[in-house]
């Protein structure tokens, strides 16, 4: 049975013990937390926008995403082995981790609560169209869905389709259209 009461107190007590034993420094914990409070899906959006405007970069991203993403300065924990999958009018990609909550931290930040929920993890692989309805997303019936279950240390990034009406836009402006969910597959880019 889950003991919900006192979790904050227990976590505080654990930190006390770990500090008293010399295993952690509180300032190091703050430094870790601050990094993950700072990193977010803007990194991924930059990758996607670059991919949209630079055909050679797109090629590198789809061939070796880890290196292509490192070109823009992103990488590290939970982004060691990246794979980018590209949406097309024929196929829509959706990312899940059914077994835990694997997620490309350096590119998208920490996962949203729903990504970690049993509701999402259970349903993504058996009923993704029903699941997408929970996000208000309806795909064309003719568009296939490929779900990627992150069962190893590979982390996936969805490259959504570039919205119409953005011809000639610069990278920075395009990046603003790339919402986080569009890089997981539970959303689409904003259309201007």
């Amino acid at each position, binding site marked *: *049975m*889950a003991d*919900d009461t006192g*979790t*904050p107190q227990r*976590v*505080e*007590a*654990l*930190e*006390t*013990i770990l500090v*008293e*034993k*010399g*295993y*952690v*420094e509180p300032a*190091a*914990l*703050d*430094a*870790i*937390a601050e990094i*993950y*409070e700072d990193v977010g899906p803007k990194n991924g959006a930059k990758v996607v926008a670059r991919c949209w405007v630079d055909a050679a970069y797109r090629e590198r991203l789809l061939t070796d995403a880890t290196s292509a993403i490192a070109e823009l300065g992103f*990488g*590290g*924990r939970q982004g*060691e*082995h990246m794979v980018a999958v590209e949406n097309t009018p024929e196929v829509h990609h959706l990312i899940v981790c*059914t*077994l*835990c*909550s694997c997620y490309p931290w*350096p590119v998208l*930040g*920490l996962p949203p*609560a*729903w990504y*970690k*929920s*049993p*509701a999402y*993890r*259970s*349903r993504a*692989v*058996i*009923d993704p*169209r029903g699941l997408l309805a929970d*996000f208000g997303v309806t795909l064309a019936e*003719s568009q296939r*869905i*490929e779900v990627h*279950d992150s069962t*190893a*240390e*590979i982390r996936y990034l969805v490259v959504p389709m570039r919205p119409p009406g953005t011809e000639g836009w610069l990278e920075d402006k395009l990046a603003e259209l790339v919402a*986080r969910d569009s890089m997981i597959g539970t959303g689409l880019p904003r259309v201007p």
Partner: protein
Amino acid sequence: MNGAADLGGMMGFGPVVVKPDGPPFQAEWERRAHAMVIALGAAGHWSIDASRYARESLPPAEYLTSTYYEIWIKALVKLLIAHGLVDADELASRRSLRPGAKLGRVLRPDEVPAVLAARRPYERPAEAAARYAVGDRVRARNMHPTGHTRLPRYARGKIGVIERLHGVHVLPDSNAHGAGEHPGWLYSVRFAATELWGDDADPTLSVSIDAWESYLQAP
């Protein structure tokens, strides 16, 4: 193991509740819990696979009634005790009662950015050629180990197609239990939903998993 964490295809959890994004941590304790897991993980006493096993082996009722960071902190406590770094009586009295074993590495504040930015790859040099090539049909083994595995139940026994080779990666099944990295070829294997879920499944749907060579056999 066939634990509560292996959720693919389960039903009854209701709709996904999508709320406007808040800060990444919903409370100060979540912030500290996350940081402690990272800091102790960097000490090198256990692998990410051991962490995952510590989480998924929580009793199913506890797993499903705990929040994400509750699961993390419960698993961290299990690992700290199992590795002799913290004792149960210390947790009960909420303070250190004796000097602990020496920690492999204590993360200093100024080291944090470099450590988190560093790649810690799970890829290893190939010592044998890959058995399967893109396009090959393979069957995921029907196996039900009591220990850690990353082959989800829904894929076991099912036939799929090799979609991509990821190189040779550390095998979680052994690494989680301190039994060595036993690196093996890692593949993306794509399964038709009709193969996974039967004739009534969405014919336009496929599901890919990343599977080690030892998870696979000839169809």
